[in-house]
């Protein structure tokens, strides 16, 4: 059985290396490898200056670091050019930027915004706001209880008036890859823009914006082994160019008078104020690290762990896993409930055994309502987790109902 010693990545993660916890909340935020922490440190110790505006060498070197990170992100998601990569704070800000600068501008009364019922609040609330302000109609794309979206549901969801589709590439509850290409092609037929929430996909599967054909794509550094406080918005140049800026202020202008301003070129138009260059440098290091591990290896390890966990959970009475029966269709995410036990108690009991999982609505309350539950527990695995950790998790889950006073559990 694989344990800490034969997971070769473990030692790269300082927090895990000293083993304070069995960390199974990777879908919420990843742990950071030492090289990411080091990259931020190096930025501050060797390149620290305000990028973009300095004519001195330190500022030039800060700018180079920042722009090199942009290029690395561009290559990761196969964008046409670095100008299409905008650094934000997190996925949420990226989606809000899109809602304010594209949604509010280009949607109007009678238009339809199609969002899936499994969206994270961050890809729902901004569109509720746009719908409210523009009188566009917010329409829901339904899904089956296991997270699949059927062709019928797609036909139901789309109409001639669909002008924007906001959808997760991978839901943070199901972990299943949504049929984005099909959705993009249906959107194209109607001239609708597609906004892809890639917060849960970029950390797990190769993402190619050109191949997918989406118009916007958002993700967070912190779920991708990178630092907190840095996120990405990809937008097709043609759209970004015509959109007005969102935040305004320093760095995003070409010239300013008392009464108005001419805005800077892409991508700067959308990056107001002093940028988080250290965060970008950290994200670049994370991407390099991830590429070195490789998506294939990540997928292989995550699927193995998920497979072990899924078959283990299925054997425990009263435990119900949400989503696909196939471990490879979970992106490392297993959301589950236990009859008669509130998910917060599940999480607390696991915590008592040193295991960190999430419990609650996972920022997806409409989905919880759709599934007829008010909350659930979620274990999410990363390539740096081990079989031993999954075993400990299963053992702890097995004991939960007994600890909660139910008499039906055999003591193993």
């Amino acid at each position, binding site marked *: 059985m694989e344990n800490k010693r034969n997971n070769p990545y473990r030692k790269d993660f300082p927090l895990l290396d000293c083993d304070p916890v069995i960390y199974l909340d990777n879908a919420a935020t990843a742990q950071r490898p030492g090289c990411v922490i080091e990259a931020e440190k190096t930025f501050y110790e060797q390149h620290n200056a305000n990028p973009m505006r300095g004519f001195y060498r330190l500022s030039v070197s800060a700018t180079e670091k920042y722009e090199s990170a942009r290029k690395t992100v561009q290559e990761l998601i196969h964008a046409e050019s670095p100008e299409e990569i905008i650094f934000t704070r997190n996925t949420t800000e990226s989606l809000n930027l899109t809602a304010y600068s594209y949604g509010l501008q280009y949607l109007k009364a009678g238009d339809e915004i199609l969002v899936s019922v499994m969206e994270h609040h961050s890809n729902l609330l901004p569109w509720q706001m746009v719908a409210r302000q523009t009188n566009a109609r917010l329409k829901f794309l339904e899904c089956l209880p296991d997270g699949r979206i059927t062709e019928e549901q797609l036909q139901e969801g789309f109409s001639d008036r669909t002008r924007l589709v906001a959808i997760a590439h991978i839901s943070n509850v199901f972990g299943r890859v949504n049929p984005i290409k099909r959705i993009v092609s249906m959107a194209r037929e109607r001239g609708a823009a597609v906004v892809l929430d890639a917060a849960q996909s970029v950390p797990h599967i190769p993402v190619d914006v050109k191949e997918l054909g989406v118009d916007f794509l958002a993700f967070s550094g912190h779920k991708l082994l990178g630092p907190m406080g840095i996120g990405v918005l990809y937008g097709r140049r043609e759209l970004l160019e015509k959109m007005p800026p969102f935040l305004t202020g320093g760095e995003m202008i070409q010239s300013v008078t008392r009464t108005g301003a001419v805005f800077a070129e892409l991508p700067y138009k959308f990056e107001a104020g002093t940028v988080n260059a250290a965060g970008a440098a950290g994200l670049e290091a994370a991407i390099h690290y991830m590429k070195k591990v490789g998506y294939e290896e990540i997928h292989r390890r995550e699927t193995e762990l998920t497979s072990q966990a899924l078959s283990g959970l299925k054997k425990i009475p009263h435990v119900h896993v949400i989503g696909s029966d196939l471990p490879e269709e979970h992106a490392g995410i297993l959301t589950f409930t236990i009859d008669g036990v509130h998910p917060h108690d599940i999480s607390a009991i696991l*915590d008592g*055994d040193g295991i960190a999982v999430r419990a609650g609505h996972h920022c997806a309350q409409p989905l919880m309502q759709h599934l007829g539950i008010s909350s659930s527990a979620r274990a999410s695995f990363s390539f740096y987790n081990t079989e031993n950790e999954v075993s400990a998790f299963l053992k702890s889950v097995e004991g939960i109902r007994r600890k909660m006073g139910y008499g039906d559990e055999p003591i193993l």
Partner: protein
Amino acid sequence: METNRFYNEILTEHNLHPEHKHDLAEANLVLEGVNPSCGDHIYLKLLVEDGRICDGAFVGDGCAISQASADIMLDLVIGREKEEALRLADLFLRMIQGSLTEEELDGLEEASALQDISHMPARVKCAVLGWHTLEEALNGNISAGPGVNLE
């Protein structure tokens, strides 16, 4: 592990078999208590006559700690004077803050089973939900505080 200390028998028993979790048609004081951050909520239903809690019950939804704590609380306060119930609420809230003497602790009877919650900041709100709702209901302070509404 400390967590397992507070999922003790008293708590699980009150969670699985809550004596007071039911409707109370004759209640004359009903208040909803909500923990916005975790979604726990209860409707506390009291029959208060001449300053005395003659009967009480609750309905609601939430984790074992919030539900068991409310049940234990009702065990303790039904039949007591309003002032006495408020004194117990004060004791309970101070226990959770970790500032009770052993002697004072005894006065809380079964509710003292929740004392270890003070080590789990994320769960404190669950344990005090019932007691806070009780305090607000008895103090008539029922329009105050967000998330707390008179039914």
